[in-house]
């Protein structure tokens, strides 16, 4: 199986350890990965903030870049939601028929990481070992745009040594929302404080999710208050083995 990794702009820049974990995990499962060096961003930030021509410029780059890919794997559910829910409208409004056809041909080959593992590779036990208490935060886009269902929990529940604890109000947003966290910083912070309370009452060591964006938000507050819980992307848990624990963890 060959796949192309779209790492996303913010994972590339802010969370390279997540990308390294995806590489380690997928190569362990026998996937041959490539990395398009020209990749940047899917355009979500511009689209969600109302900058459509810019979003389209980035979207059309993405569509052209992954024409030939057998599968595109993205460790971020909100970028997948951007591609599935917003690319069609952008291309219809600002693109042409050719781009639309290219997009339609590519779309079924684009996967979020947990979709790729379960739907494409057909595995839920990836052979991981992570002896920690973990709670799973369901990011809104995974939950409601991708209808990701129990895929992440199926993967996590097969990790050896893990102590999975459910979180209250699992379907409630953490308040990140991209530029919402800046434009409406106070309301966003109020939403975050409720989420942090729910995370902390699980007494988990790690809070994990499909998206580093939610985790950057939750983790930023946890770090601010010297809380006992840290955030870690699901790829890092799934990549972790008894011989090679996740990076940066004792």
């Amino acid at each position, binding site marked *: 199986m060959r796949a192309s990794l779209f790492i996303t702009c913010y994972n*590339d820049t802010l969370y390279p350890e997540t990308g390294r974990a995806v590489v380690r995990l997928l190569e362990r499962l026998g996937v041959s990965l490539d990395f398009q060096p020209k990749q*940047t961003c899917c*355009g979500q930030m511009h689209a969600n903030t109302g900058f459509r021509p810019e979003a389209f410029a980035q979207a059309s780059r993405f569509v052209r870049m992954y024409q030939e890919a057998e599968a595109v794997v993205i460790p971020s559910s909100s970028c997948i939601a951007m591609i599935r829910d917003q690319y069609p409208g952008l291309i219809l409004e600002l693109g042409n028929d050719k781009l639309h056809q290219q997009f339609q041909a590519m779309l079924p080959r684009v996967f979020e990481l947990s979709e790729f593992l379960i739907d494409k590779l057909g595995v839920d036990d990836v052979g991981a070992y992570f002896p920690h208490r973990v709670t799973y935060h369901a990011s809104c886009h995974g939950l409601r745009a991708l209808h990701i269902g129990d895929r992440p929990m199926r993967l996590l529940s097969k990790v050896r040594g893990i102590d999975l604890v459910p979180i209250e109000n699992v379907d409630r947003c953490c308040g990140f929302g991209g530029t919402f966290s800046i434009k409406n910083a106070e309301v966003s*912070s109020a*939403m975050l404080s409720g989420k942090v309370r729910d995370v902390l009452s699980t007494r988990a060591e790690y809070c994990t999710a499909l998206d580093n964006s939610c985790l950057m938000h939750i983790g930023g507050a946890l770090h601010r208050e010297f809380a006992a819980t840290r955030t870690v992307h699901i790829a890092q848990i799934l990549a972790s083995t008894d011989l090679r624990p996740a990076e940066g963890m004792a």
Partner: protein
Amino acid sequence: MSQVVLDPRLAPPFPKAALPVLRNPQLRKNVAHATDVIQAKRGKLVAEKTDWQELRNAAAAIKDDVLSNLGNYLEEFEARCTEAGGVVHWAWDAAEARRIILDILRKEQASQVIKIKTMTSSEIDLNPALKSAGIEAIETDLAELILQLGEDEPSHIVVPALHVSRSQVREIFARRMGLADLSDDPQALTAAARTYLRRAFLTVPTAISGANFLVAENGSVAIVESEGNGRMCLTLPKTLITLAGVEKVIPKFSDLEVMLQVLARSATGERMNPYTSVWSGVATGDGPQKFHVVLLDNGRSNILARKTERQTLRCIRCAACQNTCPVYRQTGGHAYGSVYGGPIGAILTPQLQRMEHAQSLPFASSLCGACYEVCPVKINIPEVLIELRARVVNQERRRGVRFFDPMYLGMRVANWFFTDSRRFRFAQSWGRFGLGLFTQRDGWIHSLPGLGARWTMTRDLRGLPRQTFRDWWNARLKEGQ
């Protein structure tokens, strides 16, 4: 509480309007508690319907049919309602609707009117107009009465006084009704309201109502409610004026079968609401002998003309989106600066204002999608929010005034970086250098200037790692060779 402004033309932008609420623990407790209760009831009653998704599809289809043939259905309603003895008026905007209603009231020589179930009257600022014409408006919905006596404004579509606690209601009633020793027992409070309102029901001969549905095929009007005060308002006066947005029309009486099911379960978590009033025109010797319907456009045709935004007009005002919204949960309704709060308000209000006002509202959402999931008529609110954001941005760009605005400037620069991987790598290096200046010894950023301060006010940010993922990948490729 009287500093609340529910006029989109005057209200402060959402982030600013939200601040006083965020600092009000009583209000936040009330809102969180009330929405939790309604949501739990809704969840239970939706779960017992095995055909809920089919019902949603049917409700959306009925509304879409209406929106595609709106003119025909409205004319059909007008014809049938007129045959049944009603008088139908058409109002293009708020000013015309106010003028029509005031003309009717002057002809009736009304000095008082009783009102029920009409958010649309708030939309057109009817009460201030009545007041300047020397006509006293008496709200008869219990929650609206509480707000009117407390000189407060509605904060929820279905439960307008949701932000007011029982002890606050006691205080308002005691003060305004002159009942010094009133207790805060719910029965005592409702008994006080009943005594107060009965007098109005029995003495005021003119009423104004809203409408949940207008039935085209037989000219009927339907109103659903919980208290029975609406029933009194609709049956006791001699003259009844119903004010309704044009999108309230439905084709057939049998469509109520679908609409009433989804409305009651979504709005109050009931299988059926306690009072459903349906009437057609006038009936000699029974109920109001003069009946007027004012059909209000007020921006709705403009919404209808837009492909993505059109679905906004499917709304049946159930407030399920409000109850589930994590933003509304924090801010309550007043921050939205309009009688329509929550996610539906965030898309409806700016469109009714023709995008001149309320421009902060489409941005007052984290786009979490919870609203879309519960909407009984399947309005894709996040999709409309994004569309409206684009309209706001396009409009601001055309005006040219935001060229150097940090957000607009930043977005243009970011796009320049994102459309070329060499430029992107350059941005990554300079970003690391720039943020490095703010990164503490623990590798984290605790404080940033400018827009970044909006992040660091409550959140740390991990400093940028030395090596980007792509640099690691490239180094690994080289090693492998």
